[in-house]
């Protein structure tokens, strides 16, 4: 591979890791600061991606409509797709939160896992909604005409990084403020936080919704990157567990750690792909599972030897006035 090819490959890697970093930031609000055990990230990933697809593509007409069914198509620009994905994910998180946030944390995990799979299966089976298993194609990309399509990824990398930084800054501000202090108190001891006058249900709900909105933006960024989505992407492995590994590796309770973890783990994940190329022929068919195994072993090692992750939570988080 010549040098240009390597750089192009690294750029695509950086885009995907950046998109995963957005998911990690969302999960960090929910788990890192509030202790909400959401293992249904794939659900918000899926909703965010489909929301933006329906918002930014036109509804098919004529012959084309025989092949592609979708409930609506608004043909709006990229930015409306992002906002729409965030809002729809927020509303859905709110609806999910009403019954589940009153459950203990293990039950929340079971409920979110089930809900995420339900969304995926709905999109898979309800053809009228978003074209069933064939999915939707032809999503527009922002600033598309600016450069040669072969170099478009550079532009998209900049878009992803800008959005990631904006999300990072808005979360940092909120977490350093009294709002974040209450979330952490809820994480540490819910009963005690309630007795200290904090409406724990309200704060848990805000955390769940805010985190889900961030995840929705992540899903939208993914959809506009690949330009085509189908339900088989949003599996628990790619949509949920790898994000958990990233957050654990980077340091739950630390936003810089969430981003770092996404880049490190995605790098390892891709690196492992190259390594499995050297496997003997008989094992090659099993390569994806071996990669999966490697990542899970990595998670075990982190949890045993460095449970706080690479960066870990800072000792003093409420430093708005320092």
């Amino acid at each position, binding site marked *: 591979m010549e040098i240009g090819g390597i750089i192009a490959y690294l750029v695509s890697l950086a885009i995907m890791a950046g998109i995963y970093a957005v998911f990690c930031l969302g999960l960090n609000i929910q788990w890192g600061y509030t202790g909400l055990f959401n293992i249904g990230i794939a659900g918000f990933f899926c909703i965010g991606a489909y929301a933006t697809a329906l918002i930014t593509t036109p509804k098919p007409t004529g012959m084309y409509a025989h092949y592609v069914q979708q409930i609506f198509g608004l043909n709006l620009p990229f930015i409306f797709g992002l906002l729409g994905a965030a809002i729809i994910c927020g509303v859905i998180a709110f609806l999910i939160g009403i019954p589940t946030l009153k459950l203990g944390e293990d039950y929340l995990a079971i409920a979110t896992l089930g809900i995420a799979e339900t969304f995926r299966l709905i999109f898979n089976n309800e053809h009228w909604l978003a074209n069933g298993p064939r999915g939707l194609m032809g999503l527009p990309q922002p600033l598309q005409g600016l450069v040669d399509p072969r170099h478009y990824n550079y532009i998209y990398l900049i878009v992803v990084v800008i959005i990631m930084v904006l999300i990072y800054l808005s979360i940092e501000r909120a977490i350093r403020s009294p709002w974040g202090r209450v979330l*952490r108190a809820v994480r540490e001891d819910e009963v005690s936080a309630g007795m*200290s006058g904090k409406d724990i249900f309200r704060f848990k709900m805000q955390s769940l919704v805010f985190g889900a909105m961030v995840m929705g933006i992540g899903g939208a960024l993914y959809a506009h990157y690949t330009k085509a989505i189908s339900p088989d992407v949003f599996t628990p492995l790619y949509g949920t567990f790898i994000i958990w590994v990233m957050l654990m590796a980077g340091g739950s309770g630390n936003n810089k750690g969430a981003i770092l973890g996404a880049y490190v783990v995605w790098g390892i994940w891709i690196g492992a792909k190259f390594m499995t190329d050297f496997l003997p022929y008989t094992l090659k068919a099993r390569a994806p599972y071996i990669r999966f195994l490697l990542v899970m072993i990595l998670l075990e090692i982190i949890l045993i030897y460095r449970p706080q992750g690479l960066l870990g939570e800072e000792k003093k988080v409420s430093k*708005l006035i320092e």
Partner: protein
Amino acid sequence: MLEIKEVEKSFGGLTAVCDCSLAVQEGSITGLIGPNGAGKTTLFNVITGYYKPDRGNIIFQGQNIDGLLPHQIFQKKMYRTFQITREFAQMTVLENVMLMPDQQIGEKLWNTWFRASSVRKQEKVIQEKALDVLEFVELIDLKDEYAGSLSGGQKKLLELARSMMAEPKMVLLDEPGAGVNPTLMRKLIANIKKLCEEKKITFFLIEHDMDLVMNLCNPVIVMSEGKKLAEGTPDEIKKDERVLEAYLGGQYR
């Protein structure tokens, strides 16, 4: 100030608090004693909204508060501490104390982004006050340590600091002296007395350490088997036949 009328709370077949009525006068330090299993902590849990009473009324400053959620009861200016301290372990001592003031501007997500300057201004005031409170309970040197790494006695002081920060009218203390060494205990007693006199806070406390109770509390209420058994000054309680029977089973008469 606080009136409990015929409150009942049972768990399955076990009636922890049964037809219990008692009252706490404003400005007093009222002690609540009784043998293990008398229902003291359950009564505290019912008063502060952790449990809903099955029956009866709880009236605080003329308002019915039974059935309210814990944070709503806190907003009525009543605060409680726990028998086993429940600090926020992975937060610093200062953060633990700064959490307490009610309705902080910066607790609204929107305000953290769009009203940053007023959030900062209030945060400064709160921090200032938190430092004063930590000075008062002599935890100031530990302000940047994790609350979870304090000793048992220091955690009790932190609980006291948190209750001061909350500016309550009434504080319910569940065994403030348990596991506290005598030196710290004297400090704790002095602090409670001072808060009662200077800040006009009413205290209602459960305690097994009779020295602390006899030193600090007046009146003392005795609970046994889920209801009030006796009430009086410490001296009256010491001599009360029924109290001795409840504690010692009667064979020492």
